[in-house]
């Protein structure tokens, strides 16, 4: 489990994550939602050891992230960031290979190669494996990065806004993949999502944040109620049932 105990993070006196205690990483997919500036990405940064908390403790699978060597944590927790700008030209295969770095330190064994092949197959990237990343569409690129995370072979996977800048088809495609990773491969996926309908459709549990605190934490169906969403986003959100699924309408 990923456990946060009384975690606080401030930037120049402004509290961004305020005394949060939360357990993530149960079976299936957990979505983290909330308005901009709610502290979702900061929370990911704290768990992904990019940021140090000002107070509190974070453990991943029982390992305290402030004392466990980074290399060991990278074998239990994989993080995909939002912005993946690269200065060098890499092929899809090169990128996926990097997923094995925590295990092989760059010297690939037979086992590493098997993991790489499996990840490439799983994300249906075989046809693109020798293409450069800057020659791919946004959706293919995102799949390549997810393949890297998959090759890392960790129990916990954090995805920070994996649907950013994708069109409808690719958004659905990525969410379907995330779901499959959780169901077939037993990954514990935690993902930040902005579209609450995607969150409701594809995840088992939704954690809603606002002003650095967790304001709701329940199953998708319980979160998808107008009064809960109003409390989270501070705007009126209508929720209708369509084919037995709650759909939020927030287009004005």
């Amino acid at each position, binding site marked *: 489990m990923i456990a946060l105990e009384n975690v606080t993070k401030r930037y120049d006196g402004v509290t961004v994550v305020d005394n949060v205690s939360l357990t993530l990483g149960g079976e299936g997919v957990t979505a983290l939602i909330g308005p901009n500036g709610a502290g979702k990405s900061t929370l990911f940064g704290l768990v992904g050891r990019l940021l140090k908390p000002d107070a509190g403790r974070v453990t991943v699978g029982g390992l305290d992230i402030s004392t466990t*060597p980074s*290399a*060991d944590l990278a074998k239990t927790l*994989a993080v995909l*960031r939002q912005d993946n700008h690269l*200065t060098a030209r890499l092929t899809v295969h090169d990128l996926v290979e990097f*997923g094995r770095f925590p295990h092989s*330190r*760059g*010297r690939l064994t037979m086992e590493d190669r098997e993991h790489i092949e499996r990840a490439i197959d799983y994300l249906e990237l075989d046809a693109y494996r020798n293409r450069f990343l800057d020659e791919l569409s946004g959706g293919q690129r995102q799949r390549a990065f997810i393949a890297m995370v998959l090759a890392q072979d960790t129990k916990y996977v954090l995805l920070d806004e994996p649907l950013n800048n994708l069109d409808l088809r690719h958004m659905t495609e990525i969410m379907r993949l995330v779901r499959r990773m959780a169901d077939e491969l037993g990954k514990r996926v935690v993902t930040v999502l902005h579209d609450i309908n995607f969150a409701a459709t594809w995840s088992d549990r939704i954690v809603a944040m606002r002003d650095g605190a967790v304001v709701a934490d329940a199953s998708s169906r319980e979160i998808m109620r107008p009064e809960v969403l109003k409390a989270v986003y501070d705007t009126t959100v209508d929720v209708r049932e369509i084919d037995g699924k709650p759909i939020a309408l927030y287009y004005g």
Partner: protein
Amino acid sequence: MLTDIPPTTTPSAPAAARSRLVAAWARPGFRIGLLGAVVLGLVVVYLFSDVPGSLAFALEKRSLTVAAMLVVSTAVGVSTVVFHTITQNRILTPAIMGFDAFYVLISTVIVFVSGSAAFLAVDEVTLWLVQVVVMVAFSVLLFTWLFGGKRRSIHLMLLVGIVLGTFFRSFTEWMQRMLDPLDFQVLSDAMFASLTRPDELLLGLSAVLVALGCAVIVPLRRTLDVLTLGEPTAVGLGIDHRRVVMVLFLGVSVMIAASTALVGPILFFGLIVANLAYSYAGSFRHVWTLPTAVLLGMVCLLGGQLILERIFGLGGTLSTVIDFAGGLFFLYLVLRRGAR
């Protein structure tokens, strides 16, 4: 890439040979081997051609110059590539961090305070040592200050470097304006990078420092590959980013300091060599880009020196040509980036 595979119609003998060559060219190892052969050829030409008097005497003098070139191109090539990887950019170089300007400042201060007579009289090794120690101390101070605090943004560091560089240059200019014309002349002469006539002892000492830098950086080549992905991803892949970057910066500082103190400021050289290496090596992996940058450095220095010395009949200041070519190349890089 699929399009690179030649058509599979029954190949005639020359076509088969050509396709084998194409396949070989795709391998970074082959390209580096080829470059190595070019460097060896240039070394042989430089050592043995156009010998005016005793061959033994010429060989002794010239091999020292070649050794100095090797030390400088290793220091500049390796440190620039590493610097680019750490800072996630391919235009800024350690020179931008104010290294060259700082070197000129140290020398100017010495001349300003003690006069050119003392500057010329001071033991070369002492001068070299003072310059290396001051430069390494400066960069370590800069990095610990910028990386020790809470905010450790690489862009802030570059900005600080640029501001410091400008400050050093203005301060140097101000002091130089108040110098005695004779002192100024001695100083200007010393501030042109010169690869010929290196002092043997200094060359040896610099070589040791550069070798030490390599001994730190080369074992980290695979980690450097991961750093190409940027800090967030590298941290996610289990790299202790802060520690690794500090170690690498220390290695870079020592190498740059040693080579600058040996031959003087060579500003744009690293920029050309590193960027050519990225295209030539055809791989982002540091196993290939690092040696390619060093070899290309040798080609530039040896080739430039040969052209200057044997064709135009000039000795000495290769750095003027390198700065000129480097400036043009810098403009090209900036414009090309802007066009995309």
